[in-house]
């Protein structure tokens, strides 16, 4: 029987799966696109110091 918790969890799982697929696709497409790719290879670790406007 599907109760409300199962329903919510289904949505959360779908969201997580879609998010990770999207991230994976961005990464793969950045590798497949040769030369100047629009997607950065940067993993966003902040090691190079992120920029922000005042």
């Amino acid at each position: 029987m599907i109760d409300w918790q199962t329903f919510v969890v289904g949505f959360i799982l779908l969201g997580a799966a879609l998010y990770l697929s999207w991230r994976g696709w961005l990464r793969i497409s950045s590798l497949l696109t040769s030369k100047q790719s629009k997607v950065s290879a940067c993993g966003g670790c902040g090691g190079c110091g992120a920029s922000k406007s005042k």
Partner: protein
Amino acid sequence: MSATVYTFPKTTPNRTAPRDKQLTIAVAGNPNAGKTSLFNALTGLRQKVANYPGVTVERKEGLWSLSPDTSPARIIDLPGLYSLEATSLDEQIARDVLLGQGMMERPDVVVVVVDATSLVRNLYLATQLMETGCRMVIALTMFDLAERNLIEIDVEKLSAALRVPVVPVVARQDRGIERLAAAVLQVAARTPQPRFASAAPLPRPWQSGLEPVRLQVVPITSKRERKFDSEPESRNSNSPTWQAPLIERYGWIEKLVAETVVDAGGKHRVTKRIDALVTHKVLGPVILFLVLLFVFQTIFSWANLPMNLIDSVFNAFADLVRAHLPAGLLTDLIVNGIIPGVGGVLIFLPQILLLFFFITVLEDSGYMARAAFLMDRLMRGVGLHGKAFVPLLSSFACAVPGIMATRTIENPKDRIATMMIAPFMSCSARLPVYTLMIAAFFSGQNVFGFISLGALIILGMYLLGILVAVIVSWVLKHTLLKAPSPPFVMELPPYRLPNLSNVGHSLLTRVGVFLKRAGTVILAISILLWALVAFPRTTSPGVSNSAAQVENSYAGQAGRIIEPLIRPLGFDWKIGIGLISSFAARETVISTLSIVYNVGEDGGPGSNSLVGSIHNAKRPDGSPVWTPLVALSLMVFFVLACQCMSTLAVVRRETNSWRWPLFMVSYMLVLAYVASLITFQGGRLLGFS
């Protein structure tokens, strides 16, 4: 000889009439002259600044509001270059922008950043740029440091001699910025400057000296890497063709500086005294070792309290959810998936912040450049270029900017060799793994009564990464990437007090990045991992953490498939699942272990710590899954394996080839497996458990 002491004017100077066209301004200068600090002060951006050369390897852009009457100018921060005779990738990027070669037009004005404490070297590039006829303004940076070192510069005389506006600035304190803006506007309104119109003409014009060298510089294409065998060693030769104009020009600059500068205090007396100690042949490495040991010891002792606090917050949150939500899948997901998955990683935030606090302080103070100087002998011994140190240093934060920083290395073979070993430097994502293992098996133990064993083991892991990197680079440089390394002259910047705002900004950036990562990738992976552990259901909802449930789950089935492969390393299938998930992000191994080891099953305060679960984990025969030897084996695996998609992606981009990232992931994985195997099996043979 006399010199006038410069005072920063308090009033805003007159500006020229507004212009319709948006100005393009390039900020150029020697490495570590303060270009990025000035760029940040002008634009309000926060690009990374450090007290060593080679931090900027790409051109960065921003907007600079020169005056209320004009539209903001487009300002470009360029990688540092010593002269227009560029050889490395980053220098070529800067030169192409300055000369208007390649994709973009020549900038309207060039702000040449000249370090006031090192005028002779810095003016070399300035005089070359003057000869190209570009409109330029000299920004005399680090003026406060020059004053402190009792260096008096007659700014007006220098400006008159060069016939270029010279504006002293202190970027960190926003001093001189308004005057610089006025000078830029005035220069921009002029017709292009006449070719080198100094009061005393140079003995030999730049172009005649440059041409023979420039012809040998291969353009920035992927083909460059295939040409390394035929690339002439012109820079190392003693050819008088390019040396003679260089010597003559330096002679000219030295004469000019002698006439305009009074160095009353002797240059950087404090710096010289400290350097005598920290770069000493014997004392230097000892001091470096003690500094690193202090850093790790402090990370351990200071981080405990905030870590316990974060842990108790997550435990309280789990209790709250259990108390207010009825049993069901959602409660199970939050209590056994999200909270242990995300909380298990977030708990390490204080340690990571402390690590970056020390890294930033050491960078800002100038000590890191001395560490590079000490390591240079070792690196050159294995054939690595001296310039490899900065990329390797950056890789301790993250391999991605480290690999990008290899652009400062001229020789493509040296560059690729550095890329191939950069991921051996223990990045911040590995720290949680080391810490968890140490907290579980080596905490509270001291060596010689006062040195924490945990701190020593972490230091050992960092040193293991460096040692393996040295060995691998030696092998690569004697086989696949054979090439002589050119001589390397290293600039040791003066010591400075660390800039608190820079340190604070670095830590804030780190907090933001860490929280974002925990709230996105790690959260999503934790949710999916929970699903893989919770399904298919073998028990009723709410009791998904029972041993049978985990064993029969999808994750359990997958883990048992790879178990025969990892059993020789001392790992069971649950650790195997952690290893697989860590290829998405290294820290996820903590989330995975938290989820599969039934964290929070009983809801009691002591039972829901991951360390406790690790201690209680048993194999089917009743023996413990985890022992100190297994923990060491896992740490060694994490030191050497390349479990990072971002690193592979950036290597692919920088080498423009699939070959090198595939080679990197393969050889590192094999190395990690073998080293882990030796650790575990060797330890057992020696009688350790």
